[in-house]
């Protein structure tokens, strides 16, 4: 039993590694070509290794601005969308209320709508309301399509989960906020985190909806799309690679912090035992 178990684990592990490698194949190319000593404006043929693009990644000021915009927009829209979406998911799964089925369907609709329609329709709204298209409208658009993704992801986490722990907490006198912070949130945290990550990635990468509502603000994908017409500069590869590394480092840091906190909490919990008093909850 144990041997087949281990064999199964190995098989799954190999499959997973292969799947992840597959996901990264084009990324390797992107990273590789950031070191290409390209001639002319195009970057398709390998001409040799060079560091020069890495030496001056922000030499193109428009590209740097575009990237900065994308990151800011992603940060803001992710926070808003994750908050709004998580609460919606909670409402839809935990509570029965009139119109729940309809709301369920409604939340799906943005996902069922082609991006071209979403973008164009939203632009129509902004125009009639005399709203300047630019940074803010991009954020609004991104929150709009991200809410649905967050709801769906968090719902998948919530469904089938023990819903009575919250009732139990409230019966024991915990207020609504306390219940949410100390009972609900920790349990759904993985789902919320996944949703947030997905929302951020979608925001950074969005082209179609953004192009309709960007006005004269440039985002990273918009810059690249404009540039593909005349040749994507290697600086794009450099920045894309850099972005990947930054995210990797941020999350590695997060893991370290979590582990340190875990160790600290374990130490704190162990103190009473050491001191000889009964451990308190």
């Amino acid at each position, binding site marked *: 039993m144990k041997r087949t178990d281990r064999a199964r684990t190995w098989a799954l592990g190999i499959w997973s590694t292969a799947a992840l490698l597959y996901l990264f194949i084009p990324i390797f190319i992107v990273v590789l070509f950031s070191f290409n000593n*390209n*001639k*002319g*404006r*195009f*970057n*398709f*043929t390998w*001409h040799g290794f060079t560091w020069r693009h890495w030496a001056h990644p922000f030499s193109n000021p*428009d590209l740097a601005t575009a990237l900065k915009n994308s990151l800011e927009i992603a940060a803001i829209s992710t926070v808003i969308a994750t908050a709004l979406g998580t609460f919606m998911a909670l409402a839809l799964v935990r509570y029965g209320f009139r119109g729940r089925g309809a709301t369920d369907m409604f939340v799906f609709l943005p996902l069922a709508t082609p991006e071209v329609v979403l973008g*164009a*329709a939203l*632009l*129509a*709204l*902004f*125009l*009639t*309301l*005399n*709203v*300047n*298209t630019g940074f803010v409208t991009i954020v609004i658009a991104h929150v709009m399509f991200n809410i649905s993704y967050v709801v769906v992801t968090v719902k998948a986490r919530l469904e089938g989960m023990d819903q009575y722990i919250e009732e139990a907490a409230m019966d024991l006198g915990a207020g609504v906020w306390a219940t949410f912070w100390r009972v609900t949130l920790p349990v759904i945290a993985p789902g919320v985190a996944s949703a947030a990550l997905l929302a951020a990635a979608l925001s950074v990468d969005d082209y179609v909806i953004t192009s*309709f509502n960007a*006005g*004269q603000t440039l985002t990273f994908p918009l810059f690249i*799309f*404009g*540039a*593909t*017409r*005349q*040749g994507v500069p290697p600086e794009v590869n450099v920045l894309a690679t850099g972005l990947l590394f930054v995210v990797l480092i941020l999350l590695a840091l997060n893991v370290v912090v979590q582990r340190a906190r875990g160790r600290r909490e374990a130490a704190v919990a162990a103190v009473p035992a050491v001191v000889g008093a009964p451990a308190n909850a």
Partner: protein
Amino acid sequence: MPHDDLDGIVERMLDGSEHSRRQFIRHLAAAGLLVGPGSAFLAACGGVKGESSGKKASAVAHHPKVPIGNWTFSNWPLYIDKSVLKSFDKKYGGHVKYVEDINDNFEFFGKIRQQLQAGKPIGRDMIVVTDYLAGRLVRDGFVEAIDKSNVPNFKNLVPNLQTINYDPKRNFSLPWQSGATGIGVNTAKVKRKITSIKDLFDPAFKGRVSFLSEPYDSAGLVLLMQGIDPTHATLDQINKAIDKIAEAQKSGQIRRFTGNDYSTDLTKGNLWIAVAYSGDLVQLQADNPHLEFVYPEEGAMLFTDNMMLPQKSQHPYAAETMMNYVYDPQVAAKIAAYVNYISPVQGVKEILLKNQPKLANNPLIFPPPDIVKKLHPYPSLSSADEREMEARMAQVTGA
């Protein structure tokens, strides 16, 4: 973009001049559309009839000299050496806001159409658009005339572009850059010499050919192949040319229809022979020296992107000063060296011969006179004919 007065409102926003909500509603009311605040939205988005104003813009303009100030210049990406903008600001004062938001002519027209049709400024003082859009703007009276007294360097315009079918006296347009639509070849894959448009239909290259999805380019070349002058072709002849392309697509001869994105495939040898733009090939050759640009013996299409003053441009004098500036051969040489398309300014080749002889002798950037004779501008079609042509081509390209 998707709607009648949407784009209009966008542009009003972009140009920064504050049109209050009240003013907007007043306009709606005047147009008899205001039904109530809640339905203003729906009404506004549904019932406004756009108009091509039908009036011809006055061909005479007088734009007095004023301080340059802050003005907006819309162009295609990677179409200027940015240091030119800096030196312009330094020389004349003021500050040019340079926006690279033109990626496709029809897409751009969709953005500004509503505003134009409502007679409002579009938030840009100068734009650069290709011939067929330029023609439409002139026809519909959506552009201001250029005050030539502010552009003395106008005399440097190359002879073959001094007149054009939609703007015979060049009152409304001034070429920015030209380019040729010809044939790009990957000589590593294609061993024999390519000389003719017929080569695109050679069955030996089946599945290795690409055409541009823009019918002005693709149908134009086919017309040349058929011995018809594309600049004066009728819609009927153009439609037949498109049908020929459709045939080739169905038989698998044509692998893809592209915008500028034939570049990857051609470089990698997935495409062996492509309808391509001259300017792209100059850069692609640096990446892959096996690539070649061929001016077909029947002739090639010549496209020109033109500087124009959109209606109600707020800083026409600034725009004209820029036009004059880029027609100084020294400045034009700088731009040509960066952009690698065909400069419309005389004297540029001589300047580049001195320090960049390779560029100066590149026939893609400075086509010799016998080639120039065989370069044909796009036909000037009515809006209805153009729409029909584009729709017919869209059927072929699958979209």
